[in-house]
């Protein structure tokens, strides 16, 4: 049926693709006839732009479509009538059937994907006929426990991205790997003669032991050669902090579940940074049941993060104030550092008291971008509190070489400037784009005689290199990586490289004249050498490890560390305060590596809900000071110009700008989205620009934001209470609405068989967006582009509503994932004139796309506004590679039909069929929705409400359980567990929030 084994690209007649084309719509047919009818080049261009990416090209809306309007109008009827019958469909069977591939049934393989800092995310990848289509977390993996973050979910789109570097380029002209290898061999000859002098290897952070070994091998063979690592959002500060504290760049591993009190210093540890996925789970485990040992989180941060919004107490603070707070905290807790003063003494006092009261059960976490001093202080405080070994332990750095990357890069550029570098091999990363502006990397690079680029995209760096070698996507690679706790996570390819991609270790092999070996074996042999001796039956062991996706028990052992006396001294003086511009990796595209990932570009940023743009984030007061409002363009330090976005709860005086935008050469999606903040960066101060001039240019720009209204209007939507209120009244969320009985004139429907229901624990939800992307990947949800988002037409089936509550300067921030409620009395169903949306015996609110004529009445009548409409042909029919990405079990919707969350009915159906075949009931946990599977903190529960033993039944029995707008009599199947915060009595509760009760009175 589908692709043959080892065939790099799915064959043109991919069953799913054809199915997709045959999907109910006349759309694809029509477009085909339009193409045929009008083969004009500008037409092709138009089609490409409008539909291959279906993104920002929409932007100037109607006008840019003018050209085809008349033509379109005339072709209209032809297009519509010409497709009443299906074209004949081909079946392409295997020639030789591979083992254990059953046509139509997906297989799952364990693998790993490197995140920022090269730290592994353990994943399971679903593969349909050798087409990887969906990424899930690996429950066996310590860094995942089954959860994933948004980037990992979106990696699958990265794999199929049609804009990836597709072939070897030599000075911009197509070439071949064979040619490349030849010149690499020549290079090897030269290097041998000169001991590799003048050869430099520039990579991102390497945590892969086998690749590390190969590099070491290289450096051994060519002693004069040098290896430099650089990542713009690397962990330099963490390492530096560890050096100050312990004299060595150890990596800290936290046991968040062991901590009763946590202080996050400018740290978003629940969502970003190594181990975040695991930490989110551990953190949530201490909040799922408020009654038993709920933890308390203090967050001190410049700009609101998901972590900050999950905190019980949050203090907006400029980076200087954060450090000041850290110093004061350390001093108060007797870490032997000089005292310091802070703005908000009460907050400090409370935190200190709380920490002191929980020695050994408390935790202070410094953020990835926090200056080294803060890291050092955090270590010192944890030591002082006796947390080391309890809530935090230290391990040898997970990096192969924990070098100071900034320094390394600086030196390299110096050498390049000085012409000391003849050959530079840049593997991964994108230095021309993301190195600090003051280094003028591009200029220096031009001084290098031979510039070789191994990259996933022919990007900004590739543009100035002689050779551009396509790099394989992680899902096309064999390899090994280390997880946040050192666990060795194994990578296995899910598909042969789509575009001739190779991995660094293969290129090195050529230089080392060790080519020709299967990477699979290279990795295996590496580990045989490492642990083979100590492992009986290594081959079986290895087989199992590959199957599990990790080497069991390979987590790095805890290291005993001791604080250095010099710590206090080396902290240096407290930093100067004052207005600052802080640079932060974007929560979605991070340092820019995901800039061409349409899913991440269109994914609303967790707090601002912006899409397709980065912005100059300001507190309301700061914005006022600069006379700026949302969208007004400001010029920063006379270097970059960007639109302002006002963020309640941001620290006054701190302006935050996200990195990763303004890419000029990455692909159709990422080019020209936002502005590049790297221009503000200096190698000395990568994260902070002090006293940068801010000038309001007077013009403004439209921002595509998915939520225009941030207030709950006093309605009982997110219901919450403090721990005390909760203990006083456990059913605070519903006791109001319990007062009045809702009745119906109609008899109730009975649900005898299965009865599906879903619940979201608002106490666990951090608003990290993983579920939204997981849903998008699972259900073939299209991307619509900035202009369409602007018109309020985004398609996400799960929207995460973000509400501000309380003072505008430091509001409480609530996240609420809203998907279809599958109401038993669904308002949408009664109004559909063609019965395209009806109710199933199992209580699902069914949306039958192929019956929908698109009156949109259902969406109008949906009180939750969870229905999404295909106003245009949003699904991409034309890009072949994207057909490979699609989930064959879900119809690809076409123009003019409604769609919405289906509770992943395709998964329910598979489970039901498997169960029925064995004539048994579906077991609890057998059906896991995509969002539930992805959620790092395990906030989503799903199951059969008629199975009294199921988890969902227990969850819905919780006193916190409530449903939205029940007073409308819709009887939703989706419900929420009300939020309970654990404020410190010493501090006035953050939001002057008495619990918002159910019912509307």
């Amino acid at each position, binding site marked *: 049926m589908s692709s043959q084994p080892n065939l790099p690209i799915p064959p043109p007649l991919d069953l799913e693709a054809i199915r997709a084309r045959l999907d109910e719509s006349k759309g694809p047919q029509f477009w085909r006839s339009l193409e045929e009818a009008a083969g004009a080049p500008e037409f092709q261009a138009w089609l490409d732009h409008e539909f291959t990416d279906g993104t920002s090209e929409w932007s100037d809306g109607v006008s840019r*479509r003018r050209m085809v309007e008349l033509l379109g109008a005339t072709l209209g009827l032809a297009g519509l009538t010409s497709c009443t019958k299906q074209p004949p469909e081909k079946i392409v069977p295997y020639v030789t059937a591979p083992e254990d591939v059953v046509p139509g049934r997906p297989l799952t393989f364990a693998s790993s994907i490197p995140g920022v800092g090269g730290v592994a995310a353990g994943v399971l990848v679903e593969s349909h006929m050798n087409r990887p289509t969906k990424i899930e977390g690996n429950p066996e993996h310590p860094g995942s426990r089954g959860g994933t973050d948004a980037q990992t979910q979106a990696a699958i789109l990265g794999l199929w991205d049609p804009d990836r570097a597709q072939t070897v380029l030599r000075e911009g002209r197509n070439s071949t790997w064979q040619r490349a290898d030849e010149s690499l061999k020549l290079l090897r000859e030269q290097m041998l003669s000169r001991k590799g002098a003048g050869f430099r290897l520039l990579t991102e952070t390497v945590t892969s032991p086998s690749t590390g070994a190969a590099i070491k091998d290289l450096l051994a063979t060519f002693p004069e050669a040098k290896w430099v690592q650089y990542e713009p959002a690397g962990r330099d500060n963490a390492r530096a902090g560890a050096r100050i504290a312990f004299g060595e760049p150890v990596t800290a591993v936290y046991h968040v579940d062991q901590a009763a009190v946590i202080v996050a210093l400018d740290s978003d540890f629940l969502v970003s940074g190594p181990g975040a996925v695991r930490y989110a789970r551990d953190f949530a485990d201490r909040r799922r049941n408020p009654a038993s040992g709920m933890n308390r989180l203090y967050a001190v941060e410049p700009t609101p993060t998901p972590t900050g919004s999950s905190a019980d107490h949050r203090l907006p603070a400029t980076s200087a104030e954060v450090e000041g707070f850290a110093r004061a905290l350390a001093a108060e807790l007797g870490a032997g550092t000089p005292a310091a003063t802070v703005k908000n003494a009460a907050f400090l006092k409370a935190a200190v008291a709380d920490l002191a009261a929980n020695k050994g059960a408390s935790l202070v976490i410094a953020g990835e971008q926090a200056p080294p001093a803060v890291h050092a202080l955090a270590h010192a405080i944890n030591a002082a509190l006796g947390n080391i070994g309890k809530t935090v332990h230290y391990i040898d750095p997970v990096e192969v070489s924990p070098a100071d990357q900034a320094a390394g890069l600086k030196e390299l550029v110096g050498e390049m400037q000085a012409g000391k570098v003849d050959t530079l091999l840049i593997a991964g990363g994108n230095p021309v784009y993301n190195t600090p502006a003051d280094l003028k990397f591009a200029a220096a690079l031009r001084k290098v005689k031979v510039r070789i680029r191994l990259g996933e995209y022919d990007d900004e760096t590739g543009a100035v290199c002689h050779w551009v070698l396509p790099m394989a996507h992680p899902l096309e690679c064999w390899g090994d990586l280390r997880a946040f706790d050192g666990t060795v996570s194994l990578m296995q390819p899910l598909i042969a490289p789509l575009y001739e991609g190779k991995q660094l270790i293969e290129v090195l092999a050529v230089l080392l004249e060790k080519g020709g070996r299967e990477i699979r074996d290279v990795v295996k042999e590496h580990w045989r050498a490492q642990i083979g001796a100590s492992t009986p039956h290594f081959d079986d062991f290895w087989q199992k490890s590959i199957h599990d996706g990790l080497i069991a028990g390979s987590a790095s052992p805890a290291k005993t560390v001791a604080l250095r006396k010099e710590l206090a001294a080396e902290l240096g003086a407290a930093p100067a305060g004052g207005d600052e511009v802080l640079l932060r990796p974007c929560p979605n595209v991070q340092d820019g590596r995901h800039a061409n990932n349409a899913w991440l570009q269109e994914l609303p940023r967790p707090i601002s809900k912006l899409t397709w743009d980065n912005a100059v984030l300001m507190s309301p007061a700061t914005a006022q000071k600069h006379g700026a409002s949302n969208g007004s363009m400001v010029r920063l330090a006379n270097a970059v110009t960007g639109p302002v976005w006002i963020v309640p709860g941001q620290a006054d005086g701190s302006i935050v700008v996200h990195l990763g935008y303004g890419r000029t050469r990455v692909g159709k999606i990422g080019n020209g989205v936002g502005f590049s903040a790297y221009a503000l960066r200096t190698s000395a101060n990568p994260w902070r620009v002090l006293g940068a001039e801010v000038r309001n240019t007077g013009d403004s720009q439209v921002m595509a934001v998915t939520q225009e209204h941030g207030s709950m209007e006093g309605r009982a939507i997110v219901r919450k209470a403090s721990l005390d209120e909760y203990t006083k009244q456990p059913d605070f969320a519903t006791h109001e609405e319990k007062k009045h009985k809702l009745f119906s004139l109609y008899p109730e429907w009975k649900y005898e068989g299965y009865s599906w229901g879903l619940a979201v624990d608002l106490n666990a939800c951090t608003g990290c967006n993983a579920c939204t992307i997981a849903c998008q990947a699972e259900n073939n949800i299209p991307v619509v582009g900035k202009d369409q988002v602007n018109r309020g037409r985004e398609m996400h089936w799960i929207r995460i509503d973000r509400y501000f509550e309380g003072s505008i300067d430091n509001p409480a921030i609530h996240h609420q994932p809203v998907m279809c409620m599958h109401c038993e009395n669904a308002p949408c169903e009664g109004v559909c004139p063609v019965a395209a949306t009806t109710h199933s015996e199992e209580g699902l609110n069914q949306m039958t796309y192929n019956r929908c004529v698109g*009156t949109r*009445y259902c969406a109008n*009548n949906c*009180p939750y506004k969870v229905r999404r409409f295909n*106003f245009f042909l949003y699904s991409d029919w034309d890009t072949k590679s994207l057909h490979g990405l699609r989930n064959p079990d879900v119809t690809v919707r076409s*123009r003019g039909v409604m769609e919405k969350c289906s509770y992943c009915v395709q998964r329910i159906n598979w489970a039901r069929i498997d169960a029925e075949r064995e004539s048994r009931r579906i077991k609890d946990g057998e059906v896991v929705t995509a969002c539930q599977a992805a959620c790092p903190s395990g906030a989503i529960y799903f199951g059969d409400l008629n199975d009294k033993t199921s988890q969902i039944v227990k969850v819905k029995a919780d006193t916190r359980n409530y449903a939205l707008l029940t007073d409308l009599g819709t009887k939703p199947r989706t419900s929420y567990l009300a939020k309970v915060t654990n404020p410190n009595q010493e501090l006035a509760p953050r939001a002057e929030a008495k619990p918002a009760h159910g019912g*509307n009175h």
Partner: protein
Amino acid sequence: MAAHDHSLGPVLPPVKIEHADVVLVQRHSNTTVTDKIAGVVLWSPTPKQWFVIIAIAFMVLQLLPFSLGNLVVQGIGLWGINSPVGWGFDIINFVWWIGIGHAGTLISAVLLLFRQEWRMAIARFAEAMTIFAVMCAGLYPVFHTGRPWLAYWLLPYPNTMALWPQPRSPLVWDVFAVSTYATVSILFWYVGLIPDLATMRDRAKGFGKYIYGFLALGWRGSAKHWHRYETASLLLAGLSTPLVLSVHSIVSFDFATGLIPGWHTTVFPPYFVAGAVFAGFAMVLTLAIPVRKWYGLEDFITDRHLENMAKVMFATGMIVCYGYFLEVFMAWYSGNEYEWAMLMNRVKGPYAAMYWALWICNGLSIQILWFKWARRSTTVLFIVSQFVSVGMWLERFVIIPMSIHRDFIPASWGMYYPTVFDWGTFIGSMGFFTFLMFLFIRGLPMISMFEIRTLVKRPAEANH
């Protein structure tokens, strides 16, 4: 026949009769009635205004195929609708046009039941307006669907999917109501035309007489025919009266059966019907006032007609205002926070201007009709009519987009801005309407001759 030519045209020169308080200026015989009205079509020179208007209408009409063509080809996204506002101009205009249609049926049916003589002069005209308005209205439900080529799925017909429409949906009710309304209106109109078509047949020259003759079905004014004819007309009137009430009630169900604040309102059916008549009479006046002038029909459409229409318009207008008051009152009285929020959004939300404009157009402007002189001044009536037409359009804007753009979950609130394609479709349909209306005036007797004849005082009566 040979003797018959333009020189023998209108026998009575049009004379302005001051404040004729009669339904027919009594200087007519059956003959002159025939000559005057049939003459408009058959031999009187066509006023130049007719050419101007129909030319403009024809040009404007071109917007319709352009807008709809693109819509079908490229997608409904060309309109300004979005999530949460799934209905915009499409349904606004649908309701607006349907409403306008109602005046015709009301005049020809309800007034016939009440034996109102003044209906006779304007009925034909108003019924034609009904038909064309319904045709315009009918465009929207079809083209507002995401996949118009499948709109026929709303009809109950046996198919290989074994699927049927879903009769709980008000949209299905609409299909039944609107199609029935269109059919019955056309029948009613045609039946009314038959005797006059016979007259035209007997007056026309050349090929025209064959066309009229064909349409007249060989009507010969036999007493027995008249007998059954009158029975049928009476029955049709009796059927059309509940029909016309049901149609706009059902249209109002599209909203009243929804649960959106601002839609979920029990007062809708009566006040939609009243609003429909309100808008309809405004449109009748808009058309009647200039036409009567250009064709010198003051004898037949007298100031009495204008005044009566003004009175109906005024009365229905006041009912509509009562409806608005009731919405406000219920929002407060229900004590429901969503209802109240809905009202506040109307009063001071982003679209507040529309709401207040609505009050000015439909509430304030008609107050001048308290005065008799105003009710008899064509200028005043014409201007008020324009206000009312705009006002009734605004009412639908206030009800449809303004209710759904901010409903229950604040996070999903949004705004609605029409695009050029929204306007193109709307204005295009106006052109379509005007075009058809003026074709009708040129080709068929716009006033029912045989009914007017019944108003002619015969010498017998005229004497005493």
